């Protein structure tokens, strides 16, 4: 680390600001389009529902991979927050589908320099876990076991029932300076998408 910044990059930085201001609209337009292959991505490996004691349970196996920049930010002490969202939906003909249940699980991932471990914390329950490596921690972000989604009785109506899971990185939870950059940078955009699976 140095005290002096690179002289060559000092003035162009000011000029670049103007370019950014002018191209904000174009950049935002580009971001609206479909995301392509990125460093960061989310892969829904397995989403399985089963019935135990009259309740429909979920077991999920979701792989989250961060981009290099996100990893660096995490290693530098920036906590990342993920939003895990699960919907139980009833499909209807000639009518918009009806959401029967919605679960939102905010999960914070942080790096602990003291113990060289990664801490995972579910913010709505306070549940914590430590992981010695990042990939294990990321795999646990949306890994759910025996989570009760809904009572089986509520799926007795006609029609098809299915679940939808969405996992996304919450950019609003980033620190201010990073947030501004994250809105316009693909390095912070996770190809999250969503995954559906049948419930009945």
């Amino acid at each position, binding site marked *: 680390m140095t005290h002096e910044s690179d002289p060559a990059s000092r003035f162009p930085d000011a000029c670049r600001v103007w370019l950014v201001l002018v191209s904000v609209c174009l950049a935002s337009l580009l971001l609206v389009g479909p995301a392509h292959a990125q460093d960061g991505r989310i892969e829904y490996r397995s989403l399985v529902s089963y019935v135990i004691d009259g309740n429909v349970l979920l077991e999920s196996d979701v792989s989250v991979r961060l981009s290099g920049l996100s990893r660096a930010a995490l290693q530098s002490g920036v906590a990342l927050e993920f939003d895990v969202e699960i919907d139980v939906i009833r499909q209807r003909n000639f009518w918009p589908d009806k959401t029967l249940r919605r679960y939102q699980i905010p999960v914070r991932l942080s790096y602990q320099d003291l113990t060289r471990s990664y801490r995972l914390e579910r913010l709505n329950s306070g549940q914590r876990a430590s992981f010695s490596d990042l990939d294990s921690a990321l795999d646990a972000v949306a890994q759910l076991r025996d989570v009760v989604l809904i009572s089986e009785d509520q799926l007795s109506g006609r029609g098809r029932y299915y679940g939808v899971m969405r996992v996304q990185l919450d950019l609003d939870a980033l620190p201010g300076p990073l947030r501004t*950059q994250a809105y316009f940078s693909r390095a912070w955009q996770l190809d999250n998408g969503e995954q559906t699976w049948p419930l009945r």
Partner: protein
Amino acid sequence: MAAPLKFFSRDSDTGTWLMVAVFTAVLVSLYLLGNSADNLERFGRVNDYLLIIDAILTLVVFWMVAVNAWRLFGDLRSGVAGSRLTVRLVILLTLTALIPVSIIYVFSVRFLRSGIDSWFNVQVEQALDSALVLSREAIGDEIREIQRRATQISRRLAEVETEELVPALSGALGAFNAYELNLRGRQGGLVLSASDGFGFPSSGLGASVVAQVLSGDTVVEIEESERDGLMILVLTPFLDTQPMRDIHVLEARFTLDARRRQLGEEVQSTFQRYQQLTFMREPLKFSFVVTLSLILALSVLAAIWIAFRLARSLMRPVHNLAQGTLAVSQGDFSQRLPPGGRDELGFLVNSFNEMVSQLKTARDDADRSQAEVEQQRAFLQAVVGRISTGVLTLDDQARPRTINTAGVTMLGHDPDEIIGMNMRDAVTGNGAYASLARAALPHLAVGEATWQENIDLPTARGTRTLVCRGAKMDVAEGGHVLVVDDISPIIRAERDAAWSEVARRLAHEIKNPLTPIQLSAERLRHRYMETLGDDARVLDRATRTIVEQVESMKSMVKAFAEYADTPALHFTDVDLGFLLEDVVELYRGVPSGRSIEMTAPENLPRINGDEGRLRQLLHNIIKNALEAQEDMAHSRVELSLSVTDDQSSVMLRLRDHGPGFDLGRIDRIFEPYVTGKTRGTGLGLAIVKQIVTEHDGDIELGNADTGGAVISLRFPLLPSLEKTHDG
């Protein structure tokens, strides 16, 4: 009059308030930016709002600048007065604001960057690294101590009898300062458990971990506890000395030393914050510069907008003066400029308004005078146009400039033929204008101030006598005015009056001795007729002759008396067709060889006239026509009645097939004793003329192309007041 001109109005208050809002926003933004620069979390909260608000305001001000620029560009293209100067002022004011702001911006960015860079220091970073390493070492030492304690617990409990195992486990919990102690079987199942906390017992262990422990290894893991934070888990082999017990793994959990843990977490927190700042140094600079640039853009745009308003405000009086001057040049004196301020331009505006007011008063006076002159001229023109005297004005080259209606009628020329035609060019020609030119030119040539000439114009209806008086006009452009009077009716009236007087005197002087002469002749005849013998025949012839001639003279005197003494007239509505048929009927009993034909339309309008006099008129003209054809084997008279095209008169036209009028004497045909016949008094047509005049009519005499006389009589249809005329 040109359309009302558009003056610059004062700028609206809305714009002023918006400007105040923009500058308040700029100041607040700069204050917040400056205050949040030293606090990352505060900057994160404030920066988003700053960006959004400043971006919106920037767009609003940019739009207003664009509108002003577009309007100014339109003014420039339209050549609006003052627009070029406004452009210059806007550029100057903008540059005045832009140059210092740009310099300050560049230096602000530099200071900002160097200020952020100054947050980071190699020594601080190294110290933090060292502190973290130290903390790790301290925790590592504690973990090793914990591991040692776990091994001791495992050994001690392995030697305890089964019955004593539960209290021994609880005792070990306190003796070794453990949080939780679990004894597990070969498969990892929980056999016995003791805990210092109130949580639920731990769940099962993974098979791989159990296998690793069973192989003789000690596994140490760091756990996160919801209640107690960091916790050290030690899994160590349980080398049981008692047979028949399925206890192979000791699972021990220990909390870290509170003080050590707190210090370690503080070190970690500080280290992570520093690491975070280091990582976010460039994004932080970028965010600061973006926000600062946005504020600068807002400031610059606001400055440009103010430049527009200032330039417009400064140029308003100039523009209005230019517009006002243009209006005055177009003759519009009604425009008033908006009142100016108290400066020199305001004084100029007020002076301009005063000047325009005075100009308007002067022009109104001039317009009024001109209107009066025009009115007088129109009045004179109307008078001149309606008088019976012909009036011509000539320029200094003897070319007619104007001629009134009476002049046109007298000269019988189309005005276009003579207006502008030099009299010298017309002098050799024929017609009234040529006669006038011949009479006037000698006087015009010598430049007489006033002169008079009589002009006799031969026409189809006789000779017309015109009196022409000329006068030189005393005007700058020179010229003459000619006044022409047709005195033919006056001459004719004088002549008629003279003849009437003659007739009256003749009748008076001759009538008196005729009766004594006749009586004397009859007495002579009566006394000496029987006594004279042979001479009686002579006497008889002589006295008969005297008596016959006296009778004849009496008839003549009677005719003269009728001519001289017009009877009182009694005007009534007269059906001229019926009257004519009545008169004609009297002549239809005449010998064969004569024919009288009459045509008249149905529903002929009545005229206002004296039936007795009209009857006399009809007798005279029919008798005159018949007498003119007396020597011919076949005589024919054609009479026709009609209404004129303009529906103003009834026309009576008579035509005979006699020798016609002697055109050489036609201008005196209405005088007594003027006749083409061997017999008669020559008073017939004179009386006809007299009766026509009494009825405001006209009479024209002429000859038909195929021979024979033609008399045309016109009687007006317009109802006239009942007139009485005492002859």
